[in-house]
């Protein structure tokens, strides 16, 4: 038996969520873990997969795969499943991973369950717990197919480092023109920023900040904490912040260890995107703001006064 883990990179490094997927694959205890990487990358970076539990990395060193193309990626992943004979496939939830895994499930006649929050229960059947209703509930489901694809949510397992490094094997996957039917014309991406879905700490601002010109203090606070920045829906609707920063029911769902909400009222649709955060801090000038009910720590006060002070205190404490 073996486990195959589909991994992704950001800015030339394996994504933290993908390292968690490797660790999850190892913790499943279902045989050797092989990671699969598509596109060009530094070999030393791939060896790091070993540190988190992968014995081997299959590397499809093809520049056409440097950007995620759903069909091409799913063709390659299906071929790798066949090659390794893997019965379990693990990947981290992502804008690319989910649609890729969905197609692969059909190709290999397997099942795909996403948003899985912890390790499977293998006592009689194979059961996993997944988050549903945008974090408002969980479902315990049994996967009944032969090959099982598991999409994990952030923090589904802890990362432990073993100090080992993985061996790398080049994998020549077969790709056809049809796999590239969707052509990428242009990519606009901020390099170097902490990615919101990956971040351990998120600092988010809402309409209480009054305008885009006031985001400097949010960015400063984020920089001090090594955090990603997020926002509420009206903020991205009004174009104060880019759309990919919008957190909530209809935006990014985050599960950081620390979420700091500044000038956000805490509407239920916003909470839906943050309710799996470990610790929530709310800064709002209205003591009746609903967000305080969902918070661990709260400060009633004017953001323009509190945020710079907090930033200073954090810097001093470093």
């Amino acid at each position, binding site marked *: 038996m073996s486990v195959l883990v589909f991994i992704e990179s*950001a800015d030339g490094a394996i994504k933290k969520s993908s390292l968690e997927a490797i660790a999850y694959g190892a913790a499943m205890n279902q045989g050797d873990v092989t990671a699969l990487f598509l596109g060009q990358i530094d070999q030393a970076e791939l060896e790091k997969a070993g540190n988190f539990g992968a014995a081997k990395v299959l590397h499809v060193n093809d520049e056409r795969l440097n950007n995620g193309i*759903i*069909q091409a990626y799913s063709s390659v992943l299906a071929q790798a499943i066949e090659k390794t004979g893997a019965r379990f496939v693990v990947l981290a939830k992502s*804008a690319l991973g*989910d*649609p890729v*895994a*969905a*197609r692969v*499930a*059909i190709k290999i006649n397997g*099942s*795909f369950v*996403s*948003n899985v929050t912890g390790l499977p229960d293998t006592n009689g059947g194979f059961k996993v*717990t997944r988050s*549903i209703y*945008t974090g*408002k*509930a*969980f*479902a315990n*489901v*049994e996967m*009944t197919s032969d090959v099982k694809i598991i999409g994990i949510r952030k923090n589904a397992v802890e990362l432990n480092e073993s100090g080992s490094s993985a061996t790398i094997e080049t994998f020549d996957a077969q790709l056809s023109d049809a796999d590239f039917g*969707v*052509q*990428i*014309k242009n*990519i*606009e*991406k*901020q390099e170097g*920023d902490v*990615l*919101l879905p990956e971040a351990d700490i998120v600092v988010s601002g809402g309409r209480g900040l009054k305008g885009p010109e006031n985001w400097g203090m949010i960015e400063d606070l984020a920089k001090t*904490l090594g955090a990603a920045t997020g926002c509420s829906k009206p903020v991205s*609707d009004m174009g104060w912040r*880019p*759309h*990919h920063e919008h957190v909530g*029911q*209809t935006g990014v769902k985050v599960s950081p*260890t*620390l979420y700091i909400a500044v000038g956000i009222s805490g509407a239920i649709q916003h909470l*839906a995107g943050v309710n799996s955060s*470990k*610790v929530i*801090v709310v800064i709002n000038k209205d003591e009746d703001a609903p967000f305080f*009910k*969902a*918070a*661990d*720590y*709260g*400060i009633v006060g004017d953001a323009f006064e*509190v945020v710079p002070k907090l930033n200073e*205190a*954090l810097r001093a*404490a470093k």
Partner: protein
Amino acid sequence: MKILVCITHVPDTTSKISFSDNNTKLNSAGVQFIIGPYDDYALARAVELKEASGGTVTVLNVGEADTEPTIRKALAIGADDAIRINAFPTDSYFVAQQIAAVAKEGNYDLILMGRESIDFNGGMVHGMVAEMLGLPSVSPVMKLDIDGGKATLSREIEGGKETLELNLPFVAGCQEPIAEWKIPNMRGIMSARTKKLEVREPAQAETKTKLDNYELPAPKGEVKMIDKDNVDELVRLLKNEAKVI
């Protein structure tokens, strides 16, 4: 252009979720049901495309009879007709097979769905359907323009977006700001009553997962309030108590 829009019937985003029947069923008492918010974006864009260049919009739902008011709302928003596959949507694989069966028969130029349903949050039905039909799939789509047989769209990626080109037909999972949600007007509501809503029995299909039960998260503890003039205390708590910085 023939457009198929697949919609879910889901609890309003403000609903409190609870379960019945030994935690195996959603307790729908007091719950208001809506068109899935992402599906609503897909529908709005489909209606815009039809208004701009002609064609038809068919909405499709896999669900039991209680979903019909939600389907009627989609007709009031501007879809021309509707199909309901009369079956409980047991799992994504089952639903995808039902949608693929309808799509095969209907020869649609474009199949629009939501990026994900807000009940099961799978984000997978569009990919599954596309694979079953041998079509390209793109998700999450934030912008979609059609010119003849060709589409230009933008897809959200982590930390940014990419612009893509592809030929029709294909399957897209949509999200904002692809279009603005449409609110049905009086004329729409009146005409929806007489639009065709066809009920079909499900195609023979498998499931690949089995529900054991549902669970609710553990209740949140009390919030600790800190004085605004004492931010050092917050830093100390985050460091020593919560241990998150």
